[in-house]
C-alpha cells in the first residue's frame, strides 16, 4: 500500500442491497463531468463515454428471475494497473489516493484502458460535440476533453478541490459528508456513500468495515478504494 502523505484517502461504499438500478447516478455523472453525449451508434460500437455504468445481470431461472445491479466506476485502486503503464504520466496517483488523469498530457496510447481490469476507462474515439443549446449545460469547473484522450471517473475531483479550498480558508479539515460526488448526491436510496477512508470514524470507513463488504476482482491485488456491500442469502451477485 502507498505511503500516506495526506490526511485524506478518498473512498466509496456501494451498497448493492440498496441499489435499485435506477441509473440516476449515470445521468448525474454525465451532467456534472461534461461527459460526451452518446447515442445508439456509439453505444452499439462500444464507444460510449459513461464514467459510471450500471451492470445488470439476470439471476435465477424463470419464473423466479431477479435483476441484479452492479454500479461500476473507477475503483481508484491503490495499486492501479493503469498507472505504471502510461508512458507520459497522464495517469498518476495523487496523495489523496485518487487515481488522476491529466487530459493535456495524454497522448492516447490506450495502454491504461487495456490494462484496467474493470474496463472503466473510456477513450474519445469521436470528436464529441454538444449541439446547441446543450453546450449551455457544460460545467465550467471541468474541461471538455478533446478527441484522442482517455478519461474516467475522478470522484468529482473539482468538488474535492473546492471543499479543500473552503476548508483551508476556514482553517479546518474537511468534514465528513461535506463532499459528495454527483453520483452519491443523486442516489435516491443512498446506496453510494463517499468519504475519507483515512478517518476511522467517517461514515464511509464505518460502512467499509461491514461484514457484507467485498471489493471487485480482489484477487488481482489492485486494492481498490471502493467497497461493495452485499448480504448473503439466495441472491448472491
Amino acid at each position, binding site marked *: 500500500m502507498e505511503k500516506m502523505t495526506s490526511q485524506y484517502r478518498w473512498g466509496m461504499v456501494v451498497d448493492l442491497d440498496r441499489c435499485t438500478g435506477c441509473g440516476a447516478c449515470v445521468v448525474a455523472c454525465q451532467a456534472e463531468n461534461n461527459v460526451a453525449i452518446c447515442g445508439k451508434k456509439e453505444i452499439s460500437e462500444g464507444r460510449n463515454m459513461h464514467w459510471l455504468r450500471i451492470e445488470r445481470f439476470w439471476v435465477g431461472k424463470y419464473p423466479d428471475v431477479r435483476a441484479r445491479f452492479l454500479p461500476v466506476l473507477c475503483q481508484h485502486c491503490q495499486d492501479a494497473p493503469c498507472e*505504471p503503464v502510461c*508512458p507520459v504520466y497522464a495517469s498518476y496517483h495523487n496523495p489523496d489516493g485518487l487515481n488522476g488523469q491529466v487530459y493535456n498530457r*495524454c*497522448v492516447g496510447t490506450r*495502454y491504461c484502458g487495456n*490494462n484496467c481490469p*474493470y474496463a472503466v476507462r473510456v477513450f474519445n*474515439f469521436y470528436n464529441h460535440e454538444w449541439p446547441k443549446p446543450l453546450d449551455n449545460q457544460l460545467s465550467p469547473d471541468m474541461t471538455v476533453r478533446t478527441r484522442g484522450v482517455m478519461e474516467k471517473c475522478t470522484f468529482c475531483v473539482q468538488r474535492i478541490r473546492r471543499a479543500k479550498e473552503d476548508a483551508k480558508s476556514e482553517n479546518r479539515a474537511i468534514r465528513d459528508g461535506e463532499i459528495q460526488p454527483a453520483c452519491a448526491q443523486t442516489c435516491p436510496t443512498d446506496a453510494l456513500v463517499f468519504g475519507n477512508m483515512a478517518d476511522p470514524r467517517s461514515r464511509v470507513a464505518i460502512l467499509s468495515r461491514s461484514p457484507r463488504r467485498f471489493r471487485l476482482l480482489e484477487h488481482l491485488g489492485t486494492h481498490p478504494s471502493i467497497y461493495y456491500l452485499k448480504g448473503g442469502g439466495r441472491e448472491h451477485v
Partner: protein
Amino acid sequence: MSEPILPAAKSSSQLNDEMLSSLRTPTWSWYALALFLGAVVAWGLYAFGYMLTTDMSCTGLNRPVMWGVYIVNFVFWIGLSHSGTMVSAILRLSRANWRRPILRAAEAMTVFTVAVGGLFPLIHLGRNWVFFYLIPYPNQRGLWPNFRSALLWDATAIFTYIIGSSLFLYLGMLPDLAVARDRSSGWRFKLYSVLAMGWRGAAREWAIFHQASTLMAALIIPVAVSVHSIVAWDFAVTVIPGWHSTIFPPYFVIGAIHSGVAAVITLMIIIRRVFHLEDYLTPLHFDNMGKLLLVIALLWSYAYFVEVQTTWYAHEPIEWEVFSFMADKYAFLLLFMIFANSVLPIVALCFKRLRRSIAVMLVVSVLINVGMFIERFLIIVPSLSHKNMPFVWGTYRPTWVELSVTAGAFAGFALMYTLFAKCFPMVAVTDVRELEAQKSVVRLSRTRLQSSAEKE
C-alpha cells in the same frame, strides 16, 4: 562442405559484374514497380491522414479492444527485423560460409522492417501530434516520460535497434561501396565516394574491418533478443488474462526469428529471380536455410504448446475463457496459424528434396509469415475482447483505414527495399569474394594451413 559455394571458373571482374548487377540502370519494369508501390504507400498515407484529421472512430477499435491491427503490425514488423541479426550475425559468428550471399539482403531487411515497425506505435496514438511527449527531452515543465512504462522501454529498445542495425548494415557494406565507387561515374561516383569514406583496401583497413564486423555481430545479438523481449513485455507485464504470461518473452523472440528467417528465404527467392543470381543463391543455401527454419519451427511449436498447455492445466476461469473464445470465434484463423507455422514447415522441411525446391520454400516461407501475422492478431485481440468484466466483453473488426495503413506499410517496406537494391550492392561482394582468398589454402603434406583471410 562438398558443394561449391562459389561458381567456379569465373574471372573476378565477371564476379563483380554479376553481383553488382542490381546497380545497373533501372529498366521500365523497375520504374513500374516503384510507381505501383509508391501509389500504395500514398493510399496508406491518405488513410492515415484521414484518421489524423477526423478522429479514431474510423478504426474498428472500441472498448474493450483498444489495441488492434496497428499493434499487430508493430509486433509483426519488429519480429521480421530479427532476420538480419539471426542470419547475418549468428551465422557470421558461427562461420557458416553459406551465409555470405544472403547477408546483405537480410541486414537491409532488418533496418527497413524496424523502421516500418517503429512507426506503428506512433500511428496508433490517439493524439499523434504530441508523440514527442514520449521522448525524454528537457522541458520547462520538468516532466519526464514514465520509465516504468513498457512503452518507454519499447521506444528505447527500438531506437537502439535501429541505430545498431543501421551501423551493422553500413559497416558491412563499406568495402562493397568502395568497389561500386571504383566502377561508377557521375552522381553515383560522388555518392559512393562519400559513403565509402575513402576505403582503399589496405591491409590495416581490412584488419580493423574484420575486428569491427565481428564485434558488431556479437553486440547486435543481445540487442535483438532484448528488443523482442521488451515487445513481449508490453503484454506480459499487464494484468490482462491471456497476456500476463512469463513465457511471452522467449516465445516472442522465437516467433520473431521464425518470421524473420522465413522472410529472408522469401526475399532470397525474389532477389535470385529478379537479379539473376542463380549461380550465387544455390539450392545449397535454401537447404541450409530450410534446416534453420525447421529447428525454429520446432522451437516455436514447443513454445506455443507450453503456453496453451499451462493455461489449460491451471484452468483459471478467465484465462480459459480467453482461449475458449479464441478457439470459438477465430477457429479458422487458429487452425490456419497452427498449420502454417508448425505443421507445414515441420513436415515439409524434413525432406531434403523439398528444402531444395525453390517453389516449396517459397510457399512455406510466405505461409509462415501469414501465420505469424495471424498469431500476433490472436495474441492481441481475443485477450482484450474478453477481459475480467464480462459486462464489457466485445469484439473487433478492422476497418478500411487500418487495412489501408497496413497495405501502405507493406508497400513502403517493399519500396524502400527496391530503392535500396537499385542504389546499393545487394549481394555482399566482399564477403563472397573473401572465399576466393580462402581457397589459397597452403598444403603441407597432409596438413592444411589456412590463409589469413579465414581468420575473421
